[in-house]
C-alpha cells in the first residue's frame, strides 16, 4: 500500500486538499488501497462527524445520515415497515461483518468490481484514463447492458443504491462552496468518454445524508437479486420494485435495475408503460421490454436481458 497521512475531518464543509479522499467504513477503499488501485496521499476520516442518525422528516419520509452503518439501516423498524425494498436490498449485499462497517454514503460511492478495474496492472479507462477497456472483448459476463460506452462497460455494484433509485431518494451534499441536493438517480454518471468519474461529486464534496421521501405504497415493495451463489456475492442482475394496484389496474409503480449499468438504473420507461395498464404478466413483460429495448448486450452477457425481463415479471406478480 502506498503511504499516506491520516487525519479526522473537523466539519462537513472542510473540503479536501489535492490528493486527499474521504474515508468512511473503508470496506471498499482500504481494499482498493491494498490493490494499488486507490492511491490517496491523505485519508480524511469522516466517521466521527456524527452523521449516524436516521431521523423522521417533518412531512414524512426519513433522513438517513451518511455514516449510518448498512446493518443499522437494514434493521431500522421504520425502514423495514415503510420501505421494505431498502431493508431487503441492504441485507442482500455483502456479509454481516461488512454491513457492520459499511456506511450509507460509502455504499453509494463504492467502485465497480470489474476485474480489470480491480487489477492495477491491467489497462482500464477508469483507473488509467486513455489506457483502453479490455473488458469489451474480454471478461464481461457480469458487466453492463444499458448505458455503457466503448470506453467503459463497468457496472455499479451496490444493491442499496438500486432500492434508493426506485424510492426517489435525494442525496444531500456539503462542500466548501455550500450545500446542494442531487436525486440519487443523478448522482452516478454514465461512463461516456470520462469513465474515471463515477459520480457528479466535485473533489471535496461530502455526502452528509440521503433523504427518503414519503411513498405510501412503498410498504408493498421488494428487492430480488440473482447471483452466482446463494449468498455473499454481487448481483448478476437485480430488481427493486414498489407497486400500487387498484381493481386490477396498475395505479403507480417504481422500478429500478441493478448490475446492468454504470449506475443504479431507474426504469422510467417501464414505469410509464405500466401506469394504467392491467396488473398482468403480459403487461409486466411488455413494460420490461419497453425499458430493455435500449439494451446493448455483449458477447457473454446477452443472458442479462432475459434475466431482467423475467425478474421484472416475477417481482411485480409477487407484489400484485
Amino acid at each position, binding site marked *: 500500500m502506498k503511504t*499516506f497521512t491520516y487525519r479526522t475531518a473537523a466539519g462537513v464543509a472542510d473540503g479536501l486538499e489535492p490528493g486527499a479522499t474521504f474515508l468512511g467504513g*473503508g470496506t471498499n477503499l482500504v*481494499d482498493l488501497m491494498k490493490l494499488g488501485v486507490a492511491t490517496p496521499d491523505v485519508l480524511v476520516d469522516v466517521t466521527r462527524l456524527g452523521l449516524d442518525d436516521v431521523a423522521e422528516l417533518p412531512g414524512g419520509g426519513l433522513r438517513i445520515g451518511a455514516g449510518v452503518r448498512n446493518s443499522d439501516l437494514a434493521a431500522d423498524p421504520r425502514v423495514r415497515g415503510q420501505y421494505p425494498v431498502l431493508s431487503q436490498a441492504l441485507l442482500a449485499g455483502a456479509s454481516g461483518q*461488512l454491513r457492520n462497517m459499511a456506511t450509507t454514503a460509502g455504499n453509494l460511492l463504492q467502485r465497480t468490481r470489474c476485474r480489470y478495474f480491480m487489477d492495477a496492472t491491467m489497462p482500464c479507462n477508469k483507473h488509467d484514463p486513455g489506457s483502453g477497456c479490455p473488458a469489451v472483448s474480454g471478461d464481461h459476463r457480469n458487466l453492463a447492458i444499458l448505458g455503457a460506452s466503448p470506453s467503459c462497460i463497468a457496472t455499479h455494484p451496490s444493491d442499496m443504491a438500486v432500492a434508493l433509485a426506485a424510492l426517489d431518494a435525494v442525496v444531500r451534499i456539503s462542500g466548501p462552496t455550500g450545500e446542494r441536493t442531487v436525486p440519487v438517480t443523478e448522482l452516478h454518471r454514465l461512463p461516456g468518454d470520462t469513465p474515471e468519474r463515477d459520480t457528479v461529486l466535485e473533489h471535496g464534496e461530502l455526502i452528509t445524508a440521503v433523504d427518503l421521501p414519503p411513498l405510501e405504497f412503498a410498504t408493498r415493495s421488494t428487492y430480488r437479486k440473482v447471483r452466482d451463489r446463494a449468498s*455473499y456475492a454481487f448481483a448478476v442482475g437485480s430488481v427493486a420494485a414498489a407497486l400500487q394496484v387498484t381493481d386490477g389496474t396498475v395505479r403507480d409503480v417504481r422500478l429500478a435495475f441493478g448490475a446492468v449499468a454504470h449506475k443504479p438504473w431507474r426504469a422510467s420507461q417501464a414505469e410509464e408503460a405500466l401506469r394504467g395498464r392491467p396488473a398482468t404478466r403480459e403487461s409486466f413483460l411488455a413494460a420490461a421490454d419497453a425499458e430493455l429495448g435500449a439494451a446493448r448486450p455483449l458477447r457473454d452477457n446477452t443472458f442479462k436481458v432475459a434475466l431482467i425481463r423475467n425478474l421484472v415479471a416475477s417481482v411485480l406478480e409477487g407484489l400484485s
Partner: protein
Amino acid sequence: MDLVVNGAEQSLDLDPRTTLLDALREHLGLTGAKKGCDHGQCGACTVLLDGRRVNSCLILAITLSGSEVTTIEGVDHPVQQKFLEHDGFQCGYCTPGQICSAVGMLDEFSQGWPSAVTGSGPPDLSDPEIRERMSGNLCRCGAYPNMVPAIREAAER
C-alpha cells in the same frame, strides 16, 4: 493510538497503513485472528469491534482510537464448546473467525435484526437463517453441516 484489546489497554505506535488484523497479529502477538484472503472475502479475520463482528483486514487500526476489540483469545462463549461437541471444523484455520462471527451474529439475532431470508415476522434461528447470517465466513474444508447445529444449540442455551 490507544485501543482496548480483550480488556487490556494497549498503546500502539503504528504506520497508518497497518490494518487492525496486522496490529493484532504482528504488534500484539494475538495470532488467533487469521489472514485468509486479506480482502474481506473469507471472514477468517473476524473480530468483535465494540461488540460487533467486523473484518479486521479491512480496517485501518489508526481509525480505532478509543475502541474496544475482542479477538478469539478474549472470547468465552457457549458456541466454543458446541463447536467441539459437533466437530465444527477440520483444519481449524477459519475457526477463530467462525466463532467470533457466530458470537456477533447471535447478538444481532437477539436484537431482532433481520437477514436476507427473514420474512415479515420476527426471525427464528432456523438452519437457513444460520447459513445466511454466517455466509461471510468461508470454510474451505466444508465443515458447514457441523457448524450449523453447533451454532443453533449455542443459541438455545
